[in-house]
């Protein structure tokens, strides 16, 4: 195990950063009303997970974690494309992006 004083940044710090980013993402997702911000919060969460993947990949000297990251990024890109398209469509139809007001499917 590396110590705080070794040259490498210790594992715990990476994981703490990842957890902090994820928590930020959750909080943003829950309290923000603007759909774009909500969307960005999701991206934040994904990247937090990516960070922990890369950390562990480095730690165990395995490439698998890095491959997972590529997959996640790919999905995130696709999600961004679809999600932004939906957001634009919603805005055109409803002239608002407040998530509280997008509740047409509700009976």
């Amino acid at each position, binding site marked *: 195990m590396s110590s705080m004083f070794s040259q490498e940044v210790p594992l715990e710090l990476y994981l703490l950063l990842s957890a902090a980013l994820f928590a930020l993402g959750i909080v943003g*997702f*829950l309290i923000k009303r603007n759909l774009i911000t909500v969307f960005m919060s999701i991206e934040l969460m994904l990247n937090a997970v990516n960070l922990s993947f890369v950390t562990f990949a480095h730690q165990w000297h395995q490439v698998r974690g890095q491959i997972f990251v590529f997959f996640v990024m790919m999905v995130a890109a696709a999600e961004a494309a679809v999600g932004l398209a939906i957001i634009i469509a919603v805005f055109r139809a409803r002239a608002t992006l407040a998530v509280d007001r*997008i509740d047409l499917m509700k009976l």
Partner: protein
Amino acid sequence: MNGSLHLWLIPLLPFAGFLINGLLGRRLPKALVSTIALLAPLAAFGLVLNAASSVFAISSPALSLPYIETCPIGWINIGTLHVDFSFVLDQLSLIMLLVITGVGFLIHVYSVGYMKDDKGYARYFAYLNLFLFFMTTLVLAGNALLMFVGWEGVGLASYLLIGFWFSKTTAAEAGKKAFIVNRIGDFGFLIGMFLLLANFGTLTFTEIATKLGQDPGWTGGVVTVIALCLLLGATGKSAQLPLYIWLPDAMEGPTPVSALIHAATMVTAGVYMIARNHVLFDHSPFALSVVAVVGAATALFAATIALVQTDIKRVLAYSTISQLGYMFLGCGVAAYSAAIFHLMTHAFFKALLFLAAGSVIHGMGGEQDMRKMGGLRTKLPVTFWTMTAAVIAIAGIWPFAGFFSKDAILYSAFQQGSLGKVLYFVGLITALLTAFYMFRLWYLTFFGETRSNDAHPVEGHSAGAHIHESPWSMLGPLVILALLSISGGWIGIDRFGSFLSAVTGPTIDPAAAVGGKTLDLALSGIAVAVALLGWYFAHTFYSGKSDRPKELAAAYPGGYKLLANKYYVDEFYGATVVKPLLAFSTYFLSWVVDKAILGGLAWLLGGIAVFSGALLQRWQSGNIRSYAAWLAAGAAALLLFVFIPWASVLANFGIHLTLAGR
């Protein structure tokens, strides 16, 4: 005789015509449609003629009957029950086939002219071919079940063709009426078949006859019940009392259909069925007398109604019912060959009467009321002369066809004891009435002055100016049928009866019977005299401008009203059967069973679903962030559950978790 007769092609060729015209007819040119429609019955007729020629072949060896063709693949094989697709050609079915395909072909030819301008041209011929398919199946069937298939099929074709002009309410309703009334008869036929199966274990006609012949104990009892059930079926199809009511309404169909289905062929299926099952009836004298009484009663009953009808086709419809009554009378006195003989001659002259009436209606531009006709003798000469032949034939005047067959039936009835003598007189009175109403029709239609001018100025023209003779495609069949109506009886009942005797049993030989030849001649003389008397009455009543019909009607207003309203039978059935049934259906079946019980159950189930849905719906706020919050809370709870060392936490509270088995 070598090689097959290909009996199976006789029904299947018209069926192929039905498929082609029914599926593609609307896209095909009219000439092609008529070619296909005409080729099918013509080819079938050719096959029948081929079979007939090998039967009558002078050069030996002639074909020995019955000739049976069975489809190698069985139809129904359950336990001891074996039913095959088997076609049987014997003397009886051969004669029926000759009539059906021969007259059927002529009527197809006639239809080409009659239906020329109809929008449903291809549909019409498809139905007509379909009818021939089922009718030939019915006649060729070697067992009761296959016969029943044809029996139901001709009912279907009849329904389709009565309601051919379905946009007309009366036609659609007449079709329904025919179908429903026939269901009552078919119920009898079905019960009869079930009883046959239960008692004989087979539905094949020959096997039933053999089993009946082996055991002389089969008399009365169950045989009577079977025979009466079959009779109920026959009264439905052949329009006898009490189920005749559909036939007059069936005249809503196109006139060639009335000629083919509701005069010449389909309605005689009941007579054919009784003749086919005659062994059963022979074993039950009671059932036979019922057949005879039903026949005679129907003959008289329908003839009286025909006296005062004014619609030309309705007169002919009641006349058909009356003549079918004669055939039943013939069957009822066990003179099956006489009944079939009358069936054949009747097919000739009644088809001719209908076709000629159709020619008159065609010439009059659709007018069917005889009171608005008159004086057509010179305007429709061919129609007039052919119709004359038919009228004389049906009236039973020597030497036209109707005389021979009617005389044979009346003679056989006279030989059958005291009941037979009563029925003979009923038949004689009917013959008088028949001659009267047929010549009434003849005089009203063709003699006197044209009464159409003042009646119906159609679209600004007087109807009289438009009267025209029909095209030769219609007149040709008329002429051929007229020749048959004149000469069809000359075969004579003796030759006809001896030919049929292999199937229907021996006929009475006048020379050997009580009274000898003199009685036969005397009865013939009486029959002709009665027919001439009927003609005379019609002549005095209707040949000139006479007020006598009106005076007579005024003298007996009650009787006239009774006849003009057809004895109020429709009203009676309406009040006793239709109305109670409708009331039962509306108030009990529809309101109580359907709406209250079934509908209530459906509402209850639906209500439960709606109510529980309304409860569960509250969980779905529709707010995405609340969902996400729940998700996050759930994830947090899971994390807590996984990471908190519960065992030690609980141990602090004095609780020790142990897994089973450890």
